[in-house]
């Protein structure tokens, strides 16, 4: 390896194997509701999800027992965290229903 190549070398990204992500569905974020029926399990290999399932507590126990790496984004949240964010100005403007007033 040349010196420049050594100086500007890219850091190797760590290889992620099979892991699982638990997150709220978009319906839950839109309506600000939290429940087990509104969660989803994403089975991910590296960066890409190859399977999406509905959540259930039995499935989670089964995965945890088999030693699968798990990231739970719903811990300690009755309502999804994203529901409390203020929407952007663009999004708010689209929801306005502007009507024409005739006769003015």
């Amino acid at each position: 390896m040349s010196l420049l190549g050594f100086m500007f070398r890219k850091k190797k990204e760590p290889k992620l194997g099979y892991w699982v992500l638990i997150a709220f569905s978009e319906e839950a974020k839109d309506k600000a509701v939290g429940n087990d029926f509104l969660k989803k399990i994403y089975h991910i290999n590296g960066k890409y999800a190859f399977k999406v399932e509905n959540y259930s507590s039995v499935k989670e126990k089964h995965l945890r027992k088999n030693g699968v790496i798990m990231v739970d984004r719903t811990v300690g949240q009755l309502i999804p965290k994203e529901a409390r964010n203020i929407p952007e100005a663009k999004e708010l403007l689209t929801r306005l229903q502007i009507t024409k007033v005739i006769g003015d």
Partner: protein
Amino acid sequence: MELKSFAPPELQHLLDLCTSIEETVVNVRSMGEDYIVTTTNIQRFVDFAFRILDEYIKLIKEVVHIEKEAVLIRNDAAKAYGVFLDREGKPKDVFKIFEDSMSKGTMSYFFPLYVTPIMNFVHSRIYDSLIETVNKSQKNFRTFFVQYTAAKGGIYPTIEEKAMIPPPAAAKSEGEEEAEEK
């Protein structure tokens, strides 16, 4: 709904209730984005919701004879009704739940809280498993239906997972080999 015609007459009542609960919710939402919720709509919704749970539990009791598995499936379904049930699993007084929000007129904000989990239960557990059972077979419709609903709750293994599990003959041979070595 054409899928309903494939189901046996014993399961027809549950599917009728599911369609009627959908109709009430769609009727309420069609009024506008800030939809109006009346007392009759709520009462109809709660009646249908509990009747679906009753029919669902009745179906499980007839098919599943092991108590542990039946309780697990029942608890999985009851999670959708978490707002209406006590810690012991008994239904609360419905009037007490809606008392504050009805008197203040803020029912339109709280209505999705009661609706969405139950509608998700109907879609994910009943309709999805109905489609799979229709594709699978016409014989033993109810047993397959309950198996698919339980598989979606993670209680029974799915078809993909069943293929991964080794057959019992192979497991026995390993045990015998160990015994022979000793």
